């Protein structure tokens, strides 16, 4: 405290502690906001086609194409600590070996509260394909809309907003040009 350097040193020590306490308080404050948005999800059509794998064009596989109706309102999730909201649509099914598979077929990043209502008729963004290359032995699939809240400071939180009422079977594969 006798020279500028000593004063800067003393201030910066307490200042960095205060900054960390402030950020910790902000992170903890997001636990005060509990929101549980719900939405509606309908699958319009699901078709499975034969096609070639992307990496090895000599190998055949089956790809599913999904069209869906989606409406959801995510505005209650936006508090002061929300940086963005990652919304994604997942297909969940059990393989014949009993393993649970989930495939993300559509996603969207919501950055502002004004963009947070979703009401679309859409087809999937990513390929719906099974790891074994074929859907013939696979049980029926449920489609669910999930979200992930990303804060400025704090922990990531996940949630589920909508789910199809009943599981939907995969139809048999057909050739696309027919």
């Amino acid at each position, binding site marked *: *405290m*006798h020279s*500028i350097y000593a*004063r*800067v040193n*003393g*201030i910066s020590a*307490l*200042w960095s502690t*205060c*900054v960390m*306490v*402030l950020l910790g*308080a*902000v992170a903890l*404050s997001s636990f005060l906001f509990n929101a549980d948005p719900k939405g509606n999800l309908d699958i319009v059509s699901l078709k499975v086609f034969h096609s070639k794998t992307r990496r090895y064009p000599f190998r055949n596989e089956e790809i599913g194409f999904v069209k869906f109706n989606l409406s959801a309102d995510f505005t209650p999730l936006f*508090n*002061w*600590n929300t940086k963005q909201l990652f919304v994604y649509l997942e297909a969940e099914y059990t393989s014949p070996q009993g393993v649970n598979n989930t495939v993300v077929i559509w996603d969207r990043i919501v950055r502002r509260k004004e963009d947070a209502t979703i009401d679309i008729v859409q087809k999937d963004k990513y390929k719906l394909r099974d790891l074994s290359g074929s859907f013939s032995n696979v049980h029926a699939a449920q489609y669910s809309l999930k979200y992930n809240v990303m804060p*400025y400071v704090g922990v990531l939180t996940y949630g589920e907003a909508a789910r199809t009422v009943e599981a939907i079977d995969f139809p048999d594969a057909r050739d696309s040009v027919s």
Partner: protein
Amino acid sequence: DFKGQKTADDIVRVVLIASTILSFVIGFVFSSLMITMSTFALCTVALSLVVLPPWPMFNHHPVTWLSVQGESQK
């Protein structure tokens, strides 16, 4: 001077802790993290303007050195 140093230290401590609480509360009320961070930054700048440069108010109680005594021994 020591009194001045203690004054500076007290000012720093009080202002920093107060500005932490103040910026959290204000940001929470206005529901904007930008407001929190900017009030905290403004308080920091104001604090450093008050404390860092050697204002004469810190020098009101200078240390009184003993007067120089003659050469002792030798």
